[in-house]
């Protein structure tokens, strides 16, 4: 029953920040990273981790990799879980960062318990336990739109139906003086050598640059999120200006609005507006509008062909 009901969620800092807050974490914020050079990354101080979203390709994972002894033993030292549920990958990457934060950063009871509970088990079982966590699943799902017309009695789902996994999330985190890549689709964490927290922006920058340059066919479909401290707290501590605080408040308000809209199906509103628009058309006008709609279908196919 572990895989029921994990919806896909958007890769968005408003979604991720609110998601971890609903999991009881406070003082953590996600930021869009527009440039992956060392200086830009260093602006997110402290930079706890990086979440890298990219176009998933099966072929990249078909190549088997030699793992070092350090890598093979790593999952006993910190939190690393295999990805058992396709749609949970965003949440999985988030947990890979949060569950490996330095001990003095509070991550709330839900995640602390989860981390504690999964400490002595193998990565595969950890992935399964994550899949079974109702609390985490519910928080995750609260950022997705329900399918308004899925017939409720459809208990016999076809396996793998939605699991085409077009995008994938990977976390980069400095843990115990080493830079690690935590990818739930790989057997072990990947080690990128020694790395202090201070060196992390610079070292992760070069890992990301190399990764992006190696993307097949120069495919640049990726996005990067930084995990850092809640900007409002940083501003309060450093005596930020009123304007800066107001901007942060506005950003939060916008997140609340966007998240509320993400949960909506809008079926009722769409229908009322469609009725208003097509109901107001004369027969000829309506016919013409339909013709234009059909033309758009043709254009769409012509573009794809």
């Amino acid at each position, binding site marked *: 029953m572990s895989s029921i009901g994990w919806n896909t969620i958007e890769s968005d800092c408003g979604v991720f920040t609110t998601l971890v807050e609903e999991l009881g974490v406070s003082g953590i914020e996600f930021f869009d990273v527009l440039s992956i050079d060392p200086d830009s990354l260093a602006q997110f101080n402290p930079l706890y981790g990086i979440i890298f979203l990219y176009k998933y390709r099966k072929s990249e994972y078909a190549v088997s990799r030699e793992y070092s002894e350090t890598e093979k033993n790593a999952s006993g030292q910190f939190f690393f879980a295999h990805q058992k549920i396709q749609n949970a990958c965003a949440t999985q990457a988030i947990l890979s960062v949060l569950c490996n934060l330095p001990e003095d950063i509070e991550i709330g009871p839900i995640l602390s318990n989860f981390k504690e509970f999964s400490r002595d088990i193998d990565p595969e079982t950890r992935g399964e336990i994550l899949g079974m966590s109702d609390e985490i699943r519910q928080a995750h799902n609260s950022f997705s739109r329900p399918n308004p017309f899925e017939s409720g009695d459809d208990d016999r789902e076809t396996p793998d139906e939605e699991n085409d996994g077009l995008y994938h999330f990977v976390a980069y985190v400095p843990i115990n003086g080493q830079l690690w890549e935590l990818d739930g689709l790989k057997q072990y964490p990947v080690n990128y050598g020694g790395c202090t927290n201070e060196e992390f922006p610079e070292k992760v920058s070069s890992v990301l640059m190399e990764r992006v340059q190696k993307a097949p066919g120069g495919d640049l479909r990726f996005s990067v999120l930084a995990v850092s401290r809640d900007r409002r707290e940083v501003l309060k501590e450093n005596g930020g200006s009123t304007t800066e605080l107001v901007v942060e408040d506005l950003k939060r308000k916008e997140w609340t609005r966007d998240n509320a809209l993400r949960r909506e199906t809008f079926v009722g*509103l769409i229908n009322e507006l469609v009725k208003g628009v097509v109901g107001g058309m004369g027969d000829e006008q309506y016919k013409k509008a339909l013709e234009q709609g059909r033309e758009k279908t043709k254009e769409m196919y012509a573009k794809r062909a």
Partner: protein
Amino acid sequence: MATTTDILFFKAGQADFDEETSIVTPRRGQGRIVVTQPSDSEELISFVWEPRGTAGGEKVEVYPFAGDATFQHVPACKTGRVFKLQFESSGEKLFYWAQNPTDSENVWELSKEDKRVLNTMQAILEEQADDAEENAEDVDMQDAEPKSAPAVNPTVPDLASMMRNIQVPQSQSQSHQAVPVMNIGSVVSQNMMAEHIRSLDDQEVDRLCLLLPDVIPKTRESLIGVVQSPQFAQGMNTFDSALREGAASIIARELGQEYLGEGVEGYLESARKAAKKEEDK
């Protein structure tokens, strides 16, 4: 007590085939096919179509067996993914249109899931499952196919559910084949909706604002903002895909409107009629 083994389960609707016109017409509503094998019989399999959710329709059970029945993709249908179950002995042919979502850009193409269904069924019926696309000939439709027609007409649309008049390519009609509307937004764009909101009186705006989530301010400008938001666009896409996957009759019922056909066009007809009715009151 006899037990059964599930072999296959997939979402599909029924469809009718007209011998004279070579046109496959989907029946409304969502359905599923369940193929099972009673454990006390090695040869007999049960192939059941049944309605899914609240869709109507009678359950149909048939017993195909190897050497008599064949299960094939009908590649001539370019407006959706259609399967044919044919019985040699009785000459009976049953048609089904796949209702599982597809990611393929060309929606007549079988998805991975469809291929799995096809291969499994063909394996059960001891068919060669090598190359389903090639092998699944279209005996019934060949006559209608123009000799020099391009193998695939890329301008022919998707729309499993708009298959009210799935045209098996006819010699002359190919070039100006009917193309259905695929997205509500290509007839009623978000901008048109915003314009419409601007033209309403305050009372009508208030009525629409009741449909907004709690945290959203209930004003005309805020309503327009929502309608122009990317989240609203995603909501429209979800609506479109539900229509494409055969939910038009459920949607009509839930909205208290008359069902007037599948797909986006069927829905638009239904919404327009509902609006006209309100006007008359």
